[in-house]
């Protein structure tokens, strides 16, 4: 270990590291929600899906000894929750927001029930790639240990943006999300499209949960989520339904969340409760700054139940 005292430099470094470590669940849940909302439905249940995915991923990884099988199981469990939401909402006169809240409570309840035996055991972790090999400082090495899922999330954001912009499937999702009537006139199947988008969105949220329990913080317990699933749903609105903006917003949240502990560690100790509120203050501030008095939410899909 060479010079280990980097003083105040550790604050921006911790925020960078924190952004990379903490943001991945935000990325996956917000991308999943972005896809679902682009198709014209809101799935508020992703918090429950996240928690259930964390439990399922941890449990399966522990039983099989492979973290990747755990991730697959979490995605499948998330997809199943998405399917339930998609199917219920395709019934006539069903409110997607109410179903979402019910699903959130169901997912958490089931996760707590099935997760009991997995609180104590230690499951294998997901692998991380070290990008800090060029540095002697252990802090830099630690901050630049990037999990594979983070990179996958980045690639996914790019792919989803491209899909919405340039592919037939993306166009179909956007049309369905903007107007039922236009979609029907084009011969698109509205319910099936939304169902598929909700299933895919649920699966992504499940993967986000698996990251929580299998990498960071890397264990299953009932307080694992601390509301990431709900925050990610808000992030989508904040990111104006743009996948790449979702990615940056998730990074911003992760970094802001790391601010409190990092400041305390260098001796800025007054009012740490205030620093812990930083991500939320930031969101409010940015939402106010980017709001408009003349238009409704820019970029909002037209068929969404909150804009309709």
């Amino acid at each position: 270990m060479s010079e280990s005292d980097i003083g105040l430099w550790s604050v921006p470094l911790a925020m960078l590291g924190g952004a990379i470590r903490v943001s991945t669940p935000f990325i996956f849940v917000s991308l999943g929600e972005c896809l679902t909302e682009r198709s014209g439905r809101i799935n508020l249940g992703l918090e429950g899906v996240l928690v259930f995915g964390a439990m399922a991923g941890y449990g399966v990884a522990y039983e099989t000894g492979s973290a990747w099988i755990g991730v697959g199981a979490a995605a499948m469990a998330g997809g199943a929750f998405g399917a339930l939401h998609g199917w219920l909402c395709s019934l006539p006169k069903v409110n997607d927001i109410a179903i979402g809240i019910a699903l959130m409570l169901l997912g958490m309840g089931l996760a707590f029930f099935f997760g009991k035996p997995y609180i104590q055991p230690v499951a294998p972790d997901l692998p991380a790639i070290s990008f800090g090999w060029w540095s002697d400082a252990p802090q830099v090495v630690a901050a630049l240990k990037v999990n594979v899922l983070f990179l996958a999330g980045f690639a996914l954001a790019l792919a989803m943006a491209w899909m919405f912009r340039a592919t037939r499937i993306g166009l179909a999702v956007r049309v369905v999300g903007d107007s039922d009537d236009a979609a029907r006139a084009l011969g698109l199947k509205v319910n099936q499209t939304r169902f598929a988008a909700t299933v895919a969105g649920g699966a992504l949220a499940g993967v986000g949960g698996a990251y929580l329990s299998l990498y960071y913080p890397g264990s299953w317990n009932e307080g694992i989520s601390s509301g990431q699933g709900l925050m990610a749903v808000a992030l989508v609105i904040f990111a104006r339904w743009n996948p790449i903006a979702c990615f940056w917003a998730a990074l911003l949240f992760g970094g802001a969340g790391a601010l409190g502990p990092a400041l305390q560690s260098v001796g800025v100790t007054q009012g740490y409760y205030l620093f812990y509120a930083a991500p939320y203050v930031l969101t409010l501030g940015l939402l106010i700054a980017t709001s408009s008095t003349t238009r409704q939410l820019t970029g909002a899909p037209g068929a969404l139940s909150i804009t309709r």
Partner: protein
Amino acid sequence: MTVRIPLHRRTFLKAAGASALGVAASALPFSAARASGLTVGFIYVGPKDDYGYNQAHAEGAAAVKAMSGVTVVEEENVPETVDVQKSMESMINFDGAALLFPTSFGYFDPHILAVAPKYKDVRFEHCGGLWSADKHPANTGSYFGYIGMGQYLNGIAAGHMTKSKKIGFVAAKPIPQVLLNINSFLLGARAVDPAITCRVIFTGEWSMAVKEAEATNALADQGVDVVTCHVDGPKVVMETAAGRGAYLCGYHANQAPLAPEKYLTGAEWNWAEVYTGMVKQALAGETIGNFVRGGLAEGFVKMSPLGPAMTDAARKQFAATHAEIMKGGFAVIKGPLKSNAGKVIATAGQSFQESDVALERMDYLVEGVLGATS
């Protein structure tokens, strides 16, 4: 095929009447159900297998369960809100519990204080609170262990094993018990080398996995190489710190299985001893003391077996100090001592015994701790 439910109007009315009577009977102070044996209720703030605070209490409850003539009812994940009042009342009214152990710190004021006056024949034993005869009902009581001594011993282990002379503490909330643990950890390390400093990070919550992991990483970034904590479930802190190559001192329960090579020792609760003792008193019809305290010598607290990383010098000083504490009369907080804000805590020659109630009102961090209480 149709399923016939064998429920006729009369049987239904009979059953309903009987259960209503049962409820009424168990709500009465001297019910028949209570005379036949003792029902003891345990309430936990988190899951009871969290490698930490709740697991330590649940292990104590398991020992009570093994006693004859005792029924144990338990409830987990009860928040420190009006929910715990409902849990207590339902244990009293429906399960006939006559002795309750609501184990989380925040249950006492205002929740136990609100429920206890309504049930004069039920005994409420609270972990950690400061009971005083002039302010609190006579059927409530508080018990706690002097686990600060355990953190002092942790500090001795940490003081020998740190290379950077920086040790770290991940803390939940700045309440007296937590502050005493932080101060004891540092003072233990300073008994080895007075140049050592301790960084503390408060997460603000008893259980908040992501923030605990971030706090541990922030400590490691500052060059901290021995970490301990006071949060409800130390699993995340221990695993994260071990991942960063730091040595670990445990808390609440034995966390050695999580990282056997890095685990030095740990301060553990031994609630089985305390709970079986209290239940024996209740069964014999004696009154449990309102203010029960004990430390290493009384068996309330124990240390984890020393890990393989400990050097011989560390083992020697650990054993010597442990023996001295067991003799009694050992004081961690003794003068001359200043707080990290410069206030005089103890003048030369002045010392606070572990049983001194002043320590349970601690609101300072001692010199050498980098951190603040608010």
